[in-house]
C-alpha cells in the first residue's frame, strides 16, 4: 500500500507545483509583458505626476517585482503582495464594472459555465464511450465507418461555426432562444416554468458542446478498446468460454477506460476552448464570455483572474483523473 500512497503523494505534489507555476506565470504575464495595463494607463499624458504616483502606489508598482534586496524587507515586493491578495481570495477590481470585485464576477460566471459544461461533458463521455466501444467491436463495418466519419467531421468543424449553424437552425425552425441563460424580464409562475425556460436556453449551447466533444471521445475510446481487444488476456477469456458480452463487460471495459481517463483529463483544455466559443456565440454569461468581453474592454484584472481560474480548474481536474486512474489500475503502485 505504500506504493499507492507514494503515487498519491507524488501526484498531489506535482499538481501543487503546477498550480504554483501557473500562479507565478499569471503574475509575470501581466506585469512584465509590454502591454502592462497599469503602466500603459499611467503613460496617459493627461495624468499629473501626483496622480501617477497615487496609481503606482495603489497597484503597488513602486515596489520591486520579486525580490527587494535594498529595502528593509526583501520580501516586500509586488509578487508577495499578489500572493497575499490571492490568499485572501482578492483578485482585484474590475476596470469595466466599476468597483465590482473580480472574484465575485468570476464566481458567478463559473457557476454558469459549469451549468453548460458538466451536462455536455457527461453526455459526451457516456455517448462517446458507448459509440467507441461499439465501433471497435464492429471494426470495419458500417457503424464503425459512420462513427469515424462523424468524428473526423466534427473534429474539422470549428466549435463557433457549429454553434452559429445550430443557432440559426434552432431559432428559425424551433423558435429556441439564442442568447443568455434565462428570458430577461420574464415572470415565472412556478418553478417548473422557470426550469423549462432555463432548459430551453441550455439546449442549443449544450448540444453544440456535446457534439464537438463527442467525436473526440469516441475516437479515443475506439482506439483504446481496439488495443485491449488485441491483448492476450482477451484470447484467454475467449478460450475460457466467456460470451462476447461477458468479455466486454468484465475484461475489456475497465482496461479500456484506463487510457480513456488519462486522455479525458488531457483533453480538458479542449473542453475549455469549446466552452469559450460556445459562450461567445450564445452570449452565455460564463467564464468564456467574461474572458472574451474582458479582452474587448481591456479589463486586465478580469482577464488575469479568469485565466488563473481556468488553468487551476484544469490542473485540479487532471489531478482527479490521475487519482481515478490510480484507483482503477492496480499496477500504479509499481510507480
Amino acid at each position, binding site marked *: 500500500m505504500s506504493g499507492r500512497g507514494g503515487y498519491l503523494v507524488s501526484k498531489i505534489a506535482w499538481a501543487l507545483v*503546477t498550480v504554483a*507555476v501557473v500562479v507565478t506565470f499569471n503574475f509575470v*504575464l*501581466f506585469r512584465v*509583458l509590454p*502591454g502592462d495595463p497599469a503602466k500603459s494607463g499611467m503613460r496617459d499624458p493627461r495624468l499629473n505626476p501626483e496622480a501617477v504616483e497615487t496609481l503606482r502606489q495603489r497597484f503597488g508598482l513602486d515596489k520591486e517585482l520579486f525580490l527587494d534586496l535594498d529595502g528593509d524587507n526583501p520580501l516586500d515586493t509586488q509578487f508577495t503582495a499578489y500572493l497575499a491578495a490571492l490568499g485572501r481570495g482578492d483578485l482585484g477590481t474590475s476596470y469595466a464594472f466599476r468597483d465590482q470585485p473580480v472574484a465575485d464576477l468570476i464566481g458567478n460566471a463559473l457557476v454558469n459555465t459549469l451549468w453548460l459544461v458538466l451536462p455536455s461533458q457527461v453526455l459526451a463521455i457516456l455517448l462517446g464511450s458507448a459509440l467507441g466501444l461499439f465501433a471497435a*467491436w464492429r*471494426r470495419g463495418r458500417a457503424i464503425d465507418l459512420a462513427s469515424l466519419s462523424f468524428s*473526423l*467531421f466534427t*473534429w*474539422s468543424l*470549428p466549435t*463557433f*461555426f457549429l454553434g*452559429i449553424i445550430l443557432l*440559426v437552425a434552432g431559432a428559425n425552425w424551433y423558435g429556441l432562444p439564442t442568447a443568455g441563460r434565462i428570458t430577461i424580464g420574464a415572470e415565472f409562475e412556478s418553478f417548473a416554468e422557470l426550469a423549462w425556460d432555463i432548459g430551453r436556453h441550455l439546449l442549443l449551447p449544450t448540444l453544440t458542446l456535446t457534439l464537438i466533444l463527442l467525436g473526440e471521445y469516441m475516437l479515443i475510446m475506439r*482506439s483504446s478498446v*481496439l488495443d485491449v*481487444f*488485441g*491483448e*492476450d*488476456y*482477451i*484470447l*484467454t477469456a*475467449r*478460450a*475460457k*468460454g*466467456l*460470451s462476447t458480452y*461477458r*468479455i466486454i463487460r468484465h*475484461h*475489456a471495459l475497465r*482496461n479500456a477506460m*484506463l487510457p480513456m481517463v488519462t486522455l479525458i483529463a*488531457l483533453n*480538458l*483544455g479542449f473542453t*475549455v*476552448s469549446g466552452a*469559450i*466559443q460556445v459562450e*461567445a*456565440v450564445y452570449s452565455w454569461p460564463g467564464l468564456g464570455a467574461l*474572458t*472574451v468581453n474582458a*479582452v474587448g474592454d481591456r479589463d486586465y484584472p478580469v482577464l488575469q483572474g479568469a*485565466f488563473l481560474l*481556468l*488553468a487551476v480548474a*484544469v490542473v485540479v481536474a*487532471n489531478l482527479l483523473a490521475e487519482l481515478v486512474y490510480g484507483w*482503477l*489500475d*492496480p*499496477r500504479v503502485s509499481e510507480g
Partner: protein
Amino acid sequence: MTAMLEATAPPAVEPSRRAWRRFLGHRIGLVGAAMLGIALVIAVAAPLVAPYDPYEPVRVTILDIYQPPSAAHPLGTDDGGNDVLSSLIYGARVSLLVGFAAAAMALLIGGVVGIVAGYRGGWIGSLLMRITDFFLVIPDLALQIVLVAIIGPSLGTIIVVIGALGWTTTARLVRSQTLTVRERKYVLRAKAIGAGDVHVLRRHIVPAVLPLMLANMVLVISLAILSESTLAFLGLGDPTVISWGQMLNFAFGRGAVSAGAWWALLPPGFAIVWVVLGTTLLGTALEDALNPRPKRHHLEAPGSDVAIPVPAAHVAVARPPTTTEAGAPILSVRDLAIEFDAPGGPLRAVDGVSFDLRRGETLGLVGESGCGKTTTVLGVLRLLPPGGRVVGGQVWFDGEDLLALDGRALRSFRWTRLSLVFQGAMNALNPVRTVEDQITEAIRLHDPGASRPASSRRAGELLERVGIGKRRAREYPHTYSGGMRQRAMIALALACDPDVIVADEPTTALDVMIQAQILELLGGIARDFGMGIILVTHDLGVVAQTCDRVVVMYGGVVAEENAATRVFAEPQHPYTQQLLRSFPDLAHPDRPLRGIPGSPPRLDAMPAGCRFAPRCPHAFERCAVERPPDYPAAGGRASCFLLDPAEEGRP
C-alpha cells in the same frame, strides 16, 4: 503467436516503400491531399481567380450590404458591401500561412525538445517533459487569448503564439518515438562500435523519427488553422488582413443572422472545414501508414473461423473414432487445413495435419518458427485470429466434431474439456483483476451452482497445487514474477478439471531453472489428474524429457510422428535427422553441431513438392514435384519418399 503474425505478414518489402504502399491504400489520405492541394492552389493564385480585390477600399451604400448572390457577386456581399467570394479566396492565404508557419514553428520546438528529451534522458529529459506536461494542462485557447490580448493582434503575433503553444503533442510523440529508436539494438550496436552522439543522431535517430514528425506536422497544421480562425472569430484576429474567422466574426457580430444572410456565414465556415478536414485526413493517413497499429482483434464474430468448402465430402468421411476401447484417442485431428487472408490471396499455413492424443498422454508438437504448430492448435481450439480460418479437415474430441459446434456449444465445451496455457503468461492474465477472481470466474461460469466461497476455496487449492499458495490469491498478476504467472496460468487451466491441456511454448522466455520447475509441475499434473497434454515447443530437449509421443512439423505439414523414444533413437525423416544433429546435447558435449543450410520456407513461397526438399541432402527429382504421403516407418509414420518401398536402394 509469432506463427500467425508471420503468416499474415506481407512479403519482404522495404519498410519505407511498405509505408508508402499503405498510404496509397488509404483512399481518404489521397482525398485529403487533394482537398489541401486545391486550397493551396487557390491561395497562391488568389489575385488571378478572385473577381475583386477585397483589400481595395470600396464606396458602399446601404444597398450594397448583405446583397444575396448574383451574377456580379456569386456569393453575395458582406456587412461592408465587399464581395464574399473574393474575401473567401484571399482568406485562404491567411489561413494556410498561419497554419503552415505556426506548424513549422511547433514542429521545430517540439522536434528539438522531443529528440533531446528522448535521446539525452536524465534530468534534462525529465525537466523538458515536465515543462511539456505543464503546457499540456494549460488550456491553450485561454492562454492564446491572454497573450494575443496583451501583445496585440498582428499576424506575426498570432503565428508565434499558436506555434509556441502548439508544440507539446509533437514533443511527446517525438520523445516516445526517439525513446523507442534509442533502445533499438542497431543504435546500441552503433554506440558499441564507438559512434558519437552526432553520428547516432544523424544516421540512426533522425531518419527514423522524421517521417512520423512530418506526418504529425500535417495534423498540427489543421490545429493551427482552427486556432487562428477561433481567435479571429473572438475578435483577436489581425485587423489588417482578411481571414475566414474574421469574416465570420464580422458577419455574426453585424447582423447577418437577423438579415438572413446565410451567404456571409456558410462559405467561410465551410472553407475552414474543407481545409481542416483535408489536412486531418492526410495527416491521419500518413501517421497510420508510418505507424500501423497491430491488426489483432480477438473478438471477431463467432462462426467465421470455419469455412470448409465441400460439406458433403466432409460428412462422407466424418466418422468419429470409437472412444470405447482402451487407449482410444480423446482428440483426433484429421487433415486439418488453415488459411490466412493476405494481400495476394489466401496463404495456407497448415496443410493436412493429422494426429491423435490419447487420454493421459503427453504429445509434443515440435518445429521451428513458422512451421504452423501454434496455428494448428489455435485452429483446433477455434481461436484463430481474424483473417484465419479452417478450410478443411476434422477435429474430433471424445466423439464430438469441434468444427461443427455452434457458439453456445463451443463456449460450454471450452475450458471444461480442453483448456490452454499460453506462451508468455505476462499478457495472458488480465492485469486489473486479481488472480483468484480470474480463476473463480471460470469455475462459476461453467458451474453456475458453485457458491462464491466454494469456488474461492477451490481457487486457493489450485494455487496451492501449483506452488503459489492461497496467501497470494487476492493479488494482481503484476506482483507475480514470470514463473509465478505461468504457474497461475496453469492453475487457471486446471480450474474446470479439463481432459486436455494445450500448452503453447509454456517455458519460452523463462530462465532454465524456472523452466525446469514449470515442466516438473506440468508432468506432475499429467500424472496426478490423468490429463492429456499437448506441448507445443521448438525445444527438442524439452520434448525428450517430457513427451510420450512426438509430432514433428515443417512448413505447415507433419514430417514425422512416432513415440518419443523412437523419434530420438531412429529418426526417419531427413528433417528430423538434421534437426537432431543441429541440436546441442549436454550428454555428448563434444559432438560437433551441424546446422541445416538454407532457411524454412515462407508461406508465400512454399515448395511445390516436399517442403523440405530445397534443404534436404537426400532430395531427388521426385521430391521437387510431388508431395510425399505418409509412410509407416519404425512404428510411426514419416512423410518422405525415401520410405517409399518403390524407392528402395536410395540412401
